[in-house]
């Protein structure tokens, strides 16, 4: 996806003034509520017309105030999954799913069938039901299926799991990742939960008060004090690409090789779902990493990585210590007191410690 956005839009006292470019196949939009994320989506989908600027997708201008171009929503072929599922109450589940199939050409070009989608979203048992009988999570799955079956060239998802309980989130989020990977549809996901976005991508657009205040990978955003400030309140997570080495059932651990440095082994709780050799991304929350000045032998922390302090960034609510380790750059959240007590200086050798249990599979 090549998306070039520079728009402004005044709605009452709110001003959306966003400029960003993205070349990623997936992008997460992160920001506090009321920062204009949903309005930005409405502008991308064509449901509102910005007062000025341009939106260009893969070279095609969808909106350009200077050239008086405004492509109406039904001609944009941009799918939007709303926070509230918005199923049509007068139609059956199947009619809802097939709602976007009225454009023949889109169905012909579609790389998957209706049956494939029913399989992928695991909704076969819901087809016979009426829309009112569905639970919140089921409605949202139908809404996602409905949008995908219209074969959009880009998929926008506006907090698709907000308001659902944790177990439902864990049901739907992996679906979204699977859908994105299997169907290769460029996807933009809005969430105020960084963890949700990271399941899909680590490319982020940060928004605040109607403006795009950062667009980069999470790692680069954390490195920059300016953008780190914008991540206020987010649970910062270190992402490490690994390959499963072996399972050790007796000791209850699974060993992982760091992808970029196969010498380095990370141990997580026993997880036989992944065959040895499988590549995956793991996440370690920045506030789950402890620092030590030397290796500690008798401690329950399975993982101890040597490194040195690369940088310390201070934001209003926390300080982030960047540690260059054998598994790559890690971010550890620290208090100012820690910094003084341990006399942390740039270049000082340090060990990063974390429990195998604090590793999240993404």
């Amino acid at each position, binding site marked *: 996806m090549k998306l070039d956005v520079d728009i402004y839009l005044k709605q009452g006292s709110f001003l959306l003034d966003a400029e960003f470019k993205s070349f990623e196949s997936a992008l997460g939009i992160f920001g506090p509520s009321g920062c204009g994320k949903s309005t930005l989506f409405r502008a991308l989908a064509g*449901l509102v017309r910005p007062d000025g600027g341009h939106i260009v997708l893969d070279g095609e201008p969808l909106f350009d105030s200077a050239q008086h171009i405004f492509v109406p929503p039904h001609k944009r072929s941009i799918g939007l999954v709303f926070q509230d599922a918005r199923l049509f109450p007068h139609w059956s589940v199947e009619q809802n799913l097939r709602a976007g199939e009225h454009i023949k050409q889109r169905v012909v070009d579609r790389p998957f069938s209706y049956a494939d989608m029913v399989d992928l979203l695991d909704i076969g048992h819901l087809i016979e039901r009426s829309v009112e009988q569905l639970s919140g999570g089921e409605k949202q799955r139908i809404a996602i299926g409905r949008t995908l079956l219209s074969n959009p060239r880009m998929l926008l998802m506006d907090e698709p799991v907000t308001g659902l309980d944790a177990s439902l989130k864990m049901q739907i989020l992996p679906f979204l990742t699977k859908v994105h990977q299997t169907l290769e549809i460029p996807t933009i996901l809005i969430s105020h939960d960084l963890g949700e976005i990271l399941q899909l991508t680590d490319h982020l657009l940060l928004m605040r008060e109607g403006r795009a205040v950062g667009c980069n990978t999470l790692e680069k955003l954390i490195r920059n004090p300016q953008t780190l400030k914008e991540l206020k309140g987010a649970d910062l997570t270190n992402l490490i690409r690994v390959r499963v080495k072996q399972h050790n059932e007796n000791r209850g651990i699974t060993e992982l090789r760091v992808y970029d440095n196969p010498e380095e082994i990370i141990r997580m709780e026993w997880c036989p779902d992944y065959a040895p050799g499988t590549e995956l991304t793991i996440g370690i929350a920045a506030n789950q990493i402890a620092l030590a000045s030397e290796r500690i032998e008798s401690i329950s922390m399975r993982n101890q990585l040597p490194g040195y302090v690369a940088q310390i960034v201070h934001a209003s609510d926390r300080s982030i210590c960047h540690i260059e380790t054998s598994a790559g750059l890690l971010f550890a959240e620290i208090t100012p007191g820690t910094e003084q007590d341990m006399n942390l200086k740039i270049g000082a050798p340090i060990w990063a410690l974390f429990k195998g249990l604090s590793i999240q599979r993404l």
Partner: protein
Amino acid sequence: MSSLTPSEWSAVWLSLKVALSVALVSAVPAVLLGWFFARKEFRGKLLLESLVHAPLVIPPVVTGYLLLVTFGRNGFIGKRLLEWADIRLVFTWQGAVLASAIVAFPLAVRSVRLAISMVDQRLEEAARTLGYPPLRVFLKITLPLAWPGILGGILLAFSRSLGEFGATITFAGNVAGSTQTLPLAIYSALQVPGEETAAMRMVIVSLVLCFASLLISELLTRRTKRKLDRKI
């Protein structure tokens, strides 16, 4: 009380014919205008709405008089209709339809507007992102969801036409067999001494007809509300 005489029957049939014609003639314009008022904001909307709704408050006899002035033989429109198409509305049953339609139309428009404004616009947005052009959104989403309310509005116009008196007698006249609808026949019967039983018979028929259609209209409106109250 004996059954209706042939001339009373003809008044009943004429009333039904006029009311049905009003319903048919006003249905499409009322839906379009109701949708327009419910969904569009534009300059002069208030003025246009007032104009459409004016017959609700203007004395029907004044409406009838204004129709006579515009659609009469020498009226601004009536003259041209007669010259170009040889159509005469004044003192015909089609004239009664026109008079009733003008009076009943605002009721239909109001009901349609209410029914359409109750349809969740977020559903229409969802349809647009699925590739539905505006007309398809209207036909597939808005219209079916608002349908019972729209039907109720048209029935309301039908009911109102059954009872129309002032505008009809002024513009279409009171000609037995051609423009004498039920209310006009009742009025005529009351003018003649000894016709009280005939008047009473027609009053009962009139009440039954109006109540029945009003009841159906109310039921349909409620059904729309119920249908749209379900949160999906």
